[in-house]
């Protein structure tokens, strides 16, 4: 039971990482109908800049994270302006392919910045933990959950109450109508990219905390957020939260229990469980759990 509880908390923390990344995917998808395959590299940039600002420039941790979030958001907004804006109105797949190109190109820069070492985040919680009635709880997991919870709440408030949030929703709902009402739709695209860049940066921080560190091979962790959003539905923000947490927990339970119960599935099976869960869910619901089914007309 203790093992189960600590696996649950671990899983929720892992899931909160996918939630942050998934939110980024969904915000861009809702706004521009593009799946942003460049998200993984934005996450790496976030982790690198956090490491750079906190450890190399010696900024206070919170300030360093904020600076990293802003820098990554700026990189995301610039990529959108340069590479994605000309693709407005093209096939969604063409635009998705452009983001793959952006991923490949930016990855070169990220790898060059990272070098060959493992970058630590300089986070205050590190590997410390509490033991509550036999259940070990790592501070980094609590931190991940708290950060994600506050970000999700903040996003909800931002989209519901702020002027820009309203404009973003309007642009996502109907671009022409939003344009007619004076919403600068192009700028909204940039803002949604900047927001998901910032979310990816936070995810990068979470990947690297607790001594895990970030190096050149960390990138593809972020792709596991894709099963999460497919599970929840590509265009559903609650779906990203639920999907992210579910995938994180499925992955962690597999990691804990599979080696003793299903050893035949092979080492590192937990790494592919997200994709397996995604396939099974899509067999039943082709648009995910919360996604809107597209109404089609000829």
């Amino acid at each position, binding site marked *: 039971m203790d093992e189960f509880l600590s696996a649950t908390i671990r899983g929720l923390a892992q899931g909160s990482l996918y939630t942050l990344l998934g939110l980024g995917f969904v915000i861009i998808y809702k706004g521009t109908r593009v799946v942003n395959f460049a998200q993984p590299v934005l996450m790496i940039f976030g982790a690198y800049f956090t490491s750079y600002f906190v450890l190399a420039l010696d900024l206070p941790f919170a300030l360093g994270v904020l600076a990293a979030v802003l820098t990554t958001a700026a990189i995301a907004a610039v990529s959108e302006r340069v590479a994605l804006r000309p693709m407005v109105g093209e096939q969604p797949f063409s635009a998705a392919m452009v983001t*793959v190109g952006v991923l490949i*190109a930016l990855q*070169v820069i990220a790898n060059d910045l990272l070098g060959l070492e493992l970058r630590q985040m300089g986070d205050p919680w590190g590997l410390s933990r509490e033991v509550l009635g036999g259940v070990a709880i790592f501070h980094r997991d609590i931190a991940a959950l708290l950060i994600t919870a506050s970000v999700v709440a903040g996003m909800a408030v931002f989209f519901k109450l702020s002027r820009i949030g309203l404009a973003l929703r309007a642009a996502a709902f109907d671009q022409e109508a939003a344009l007619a009402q004076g919403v600068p739709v192009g700028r909204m695209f940039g803002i949604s990219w900047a927001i998901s860049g910032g979310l990816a940066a936070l995810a990068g921080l979470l990947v690297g905390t607790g001594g895990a560190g970030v190096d050149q091979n960390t990138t593809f962790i972020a*792709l596991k957020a894709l*099963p999460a959003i*497919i599970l929840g539905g590509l265009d559903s923000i609650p779906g990203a939260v639920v999907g992210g947490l579910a995938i994180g927990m499925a992955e962690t339970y597999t990691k804990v229990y599979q080696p003793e119960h299903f050893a035949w599935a092979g080492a590192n099976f937990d790494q592919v469980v997200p994709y397996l869960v995604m396939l099974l869910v899509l067999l039943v619901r082709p648009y995910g759990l919360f996604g809107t089914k597209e109404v089609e007309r000829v």
Partner: protein
Amino acid sequence: MRGRPELRTSYESDQAPLGTPAKRFWFAALLIGAVLLPFGLTSELNALIATAFISAIGAIGLNIVTGYAGQVSLGHAFFLGLGAYTGAVLSGPTDRNVVGLGLDMWIWLPAAGLLPAIVGLIVAPVAARLKGLYLAIVTLGLVFLGEHLFREMVFLTGGVGTGRSSAKLEMFGTRIDQRTEIGSYTVTREMKLYFVGLVVLLVMAVLAKNLTRSKVGRAFSAVRDRDIAAEVMGVELTRHKVIAFAVSSFYAGICGALLSTTTGFIEPGSYGLLTSVNFLAMILIGGVATLSGSLLGAAFVVLLPRLVQEIPHFVPFVESGSTGGLITTFQLETLLFGAGIVAFMILEPRGLFGMWVRAKTYWRAWPFSY
């Protein structure tokens, strides 16, 4: 009709491959050129062009499912891997690590296509339910699951780090992967690879051309352009999506098996997402839904690294080693690849083939550019 090659009086003649004398002439000229070329090149370049030919087979396969039938697949690498391992298991020797049956090439080459095609048939009904980006992400999952399988089925694949030797190019007792001396002249391994690649590519390309101009091919385009409209007109959606997936997987399997013979070695890690992206880049850079585009794109993607290797001779701040300089050739190559995808998608969505068509129409109307 003599002297008026552009005049079409029937659908057949409109759809005929090499429909004009000029096309026939240039095709023959290109073919003769392609046959003579390897005798004038170094072994390294021959091997590289052989790789391009073989990759073009895979690119044609991806073009059938993604270009013609409009079903975006990021799972191509998985089928490539399946083909490579089928070939290797059927032809290789059994040693202490891996299973091998030691069969001839005329058995393993078709089998390397058939097994992926069958797996494609199994996967396709799931995929046929999905659309657009959902499909892309699910096929992405296929790649990760496949990589896991390849890593774990050690008795077939040798496992991570160890790998296994690829399929053996031996047909009717003739070793293709060894040099032979004919009199005083040496036919190198690379030249033979080149011709194997060329012949298989020609056969597969002709088959693909015929498929795309048949009833099934027209149904593919209908499904791609407007699936519901196609359904209303009596095109069975699921059936044609499944056919597209199976045929595409067949091509991928053949490509994967042959591609692994160029290096002679297979490692589970080589069938990841990046391989899929490479093939998508081939068809997008070459030209979606065109066969010559697949070939051009494959040549571009395969030859780009070799071209970039030449850059340090001309540009000072590019370093040919693995470190130092402002940027290494490897970094530059990857950067150019990424930027190339972006640039083609934005500036010339029809790819190299589109550029060729534009150039052709320009010169046909010259000097009247309008």
